[in-house]
């Protein structure tokens, strides 16, 4: 697309790209229109991160393949109070959302700050990686990452106390994520017990 609107052919009729050698002299220019510049193809926001789900059933190769074709995103750093409706509203800006699965505390079964957003197409999910990742929801910078696909059980936090692992070890006070990290909280209670 460009400055002029949408110069696209009628549905069913594709533009006739003159490709392979028309036999013209000094050729070697066949398919010139399909040439691109790798510098311009940069799409760094859509790249696969280094995270690999340790619970994934299958080889590394399979997991990476799933990530490369996935239309599901993991969304992290949510507030515990962020609702499915808010997530729906925000992520719908990139395309129709197929479903949202809220991440839950394994014990309390309440939201624990992450979710999965699944789109109908990968293209829509890519837009979310480019334009929603790193922006704010409920005043918090949220992070999106490719996910291999939701499976039952993956909606639960994997920390010892039921929430996400990162909330076990956190040392800062985060009012949207239950205050101090779990270990710090337990230390505080222990400390108080010791005093008495």
């Amino acid at each position: 697309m460009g400055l002029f609107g949408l110069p696209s052919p009628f549905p069913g009729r594709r533009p006739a790209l003159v490709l392979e050698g028309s036999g013209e002299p000094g050729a070697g220019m066949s398919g010139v229109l399909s040439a691109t510049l790798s510098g311009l193809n940069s799409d760094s926001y859509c790249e696969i991160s280094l995270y690999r789900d340790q619970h994934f059933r299958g080889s590394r190769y399979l997991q990476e393949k799933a990530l490369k074709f996935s239309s599901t995103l993991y969304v992290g750093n949510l507030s515990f109070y962020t609702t499915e409706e808010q997530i729906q509203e925000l992520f719908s800006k990139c395309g129709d959302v197929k479903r949202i699965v809220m991440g839950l505390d394994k014990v309390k079964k309440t939201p624990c700050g992450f979710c999965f957003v699944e789109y109908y197409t990968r293209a829509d999910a890519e837009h979310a990686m480019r334009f929603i990742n790193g922006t704010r929801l409920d005043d918090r910078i949220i992070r999106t990452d490719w996910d291999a696909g939701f499976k039952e059980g993956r909606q639960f936090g994997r920390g010892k106390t039921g929430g996400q692992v990162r909330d076990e070890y956190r040392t800062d006070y985060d009012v949207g994520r239950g205050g101090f990290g779990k270990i710090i909280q337990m230390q505080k209670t222990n400390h108080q017990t010791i005093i008495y």
Partner: protein
Amino acid sequence: EIEERLESLICRVGEKSTSSLESNLEGLAGVLEADLPNYKSKILRILCTVARLLPEKLTVYTTLVGLLNARNYNFGGEFVEAMIRQLKECLKANMYNEAVYLVRFLSDLVNCHVIAAPSMVAMFENFVSVTQEEDVPQVRCDWYVFAFLSSLPWVGKELYEKKDAEMDRILSQTESYLKRRQKIHVPMLQVWSADKPHPQEEYLDCLWAQIQKLKKDRWQERHILRPYLAFDSILCEALQHNLPPFTPPPHTEDSVYPMPRVIFRMFDYTDDPEGPVMPGSHSVERFVIEENLHCIIKSHWKERKTCAAQLLSYPGNNKIPLNYHIVEVVFAELFQLPVPPHIEVMYTTLLIELCKLQPGSLPQVLAQATEMLYMRLDTMNTTCIDRFMNWFSHHLSNFQFRWSWEDWSDCLTHDLDKPKPKFVREVLEKCMRLSYHQRIIDIVPATFSVLSPANPSCIYKYGDESNKSLPGYTVALCLTIAIKNKTSNDEIFGILKDVPNPNQDDDDGVVPGTLFHEVFKTLAESDEGKLHVLRVVYEVWKNHPQMIAVLVDKMIRTQIVDCAAVANWIFSPELAHDFTRFYIWEILHSTIRKMNKHVVKIQKELEETKARLARQHKRRDSDDDDDDDDRSSDREDGPLEEQIERLQEKVESAQSEQKNLFLVIFQRFIMILTEHLVRCETGGIDVITPWYKNCIERLQQIFLQHHQIIQQYMLTLENLLFTAELDHHILAVFQQFCALQA
């Protein structure tokens, strides 16, 4: 890999560097010249590609080609030939935007002594003589005129100096074409209907005025960076090539030309009194700056940080109010009619990145722009108001919803259906969707409560108080529908006994616990039933528009209701109260999009199956004639051919459903608008009410947003719906639409 290295060297020249641009270009020319014997075709290909894909660095690359031509005359000739071939291919492939960049590149090569000026003039002569062709769409002539005029900022001076008589002839031919071309389409594409403070000019008119002014200034153009000037002594020694005579490829049935545009202007030099002077709307500098900024966005839209950085490092920073240009260009794209060049959310995120990089200056310009847009809401196109509202609410949600709402308390004195209070209401509703109800109550002054959205909750009139048991809702809904449809008692007892089973299987996207699929489906078998289902959903969820949208989406996907039913429901009297609310149109356009995607999906399946059959035939043909050929080939083909037949039927049925959907929508629009017009005329009241403006622009929006598909139905629309007997107010919309590709 050598090709990667060459590509990288070529792509990066012109970027920030410790050495000067001139020495980088000289060095690169030397490297490429040395590589020519071995890598000539690769270098040709890369250079042709940067000419097409990096137009914002046009003069950097024309200088490079100029230097190469000076060192190697044959290479220069081959490059020009390759460019002409590429131009022809672009035109055949309907890639008109990129073709303009190629034409501009060729014309700048005149400045680099690669192409002889007279041959360029001859090419432009051929371009403009397209305006003499008969029975061709206006948009075809438009493109050739645009390609000519838009190259003149770069090469006008040189061409005029060498061939002034010919240029005058071409310009006068252009002028007479511009005078006689029709401009019925313009009102449909304008963001504002008012001419003050800045007229929204048709793009060719604006460009013509800019070129006229340039000519009056004796073609002096000082904004474009021209690295070739530093190499004048080398370049003027070079031998030039003549462009081969260029015949514009003829118009064919498959040719699709760019649609006309209206130039978006919101700033002028009075808006930044302290800073550098903004070039006037008819100055050629304005044209060049805007072109380059648009090109930068086109090149880097996927990489928001790079895009923002590239925009902000546009040269000429201290001579032009760059922040204002950037904001104007971004909004120009966001508000572009029919549709923005890129997905809307990109612009929100890009503006946030720009604010991050220029925290001391850009947010203020953005605030100023927002204020200006608010002030002019009364004459802003409804579709653009939607986009403004979406952008603003999303933007605020990234900045804790901080805004000086009191500055807008003037809107409280207006009727609530006037554009300004309506805009604030929709913004607050969108802000609420991104946060929560109490937050919105907290951020606005108490006086704004009349504009605050309702607390989104379900209106549960059907029995017990509790809002928590969602399955209970669905049973209640089913019961309501069952009762309204006078379903038999036996069936109702059946519903009462069954417990809704939250369906965890998401193959068809059913949301767990929200829908009792089978029951709904049975009840919604008739058109009346479908309308009932939609009505009940509305009654229960009318304080929670987002939920209505989600439920309607699910009901379409699970085929409980069809798209036409949704269209009819939207125009039904029960929804009249909410008819101008944004969420209604969100639902309608989402419904149309689903229909369109469905058709495309099945068409694709058909194409793929046909391709599979073709491959199967090919494989068989290429194998040697074996024993039991004929029978086995029939057996092999059978299932695929059956599949193709089935898919063919499916495609036809989907296309017919799609056409029906549009016809229903247009019909309902005509009915509802005619009603209003008749009422006004008999009552002697002015036709143009806020409701009317909203409705007629919604009709326009249907045409614009789905123009490719609607083009297929032109004959039906003309003969069946938009006939001459129609009120001229409504007919005008159709005529403007026809004019877009005429």
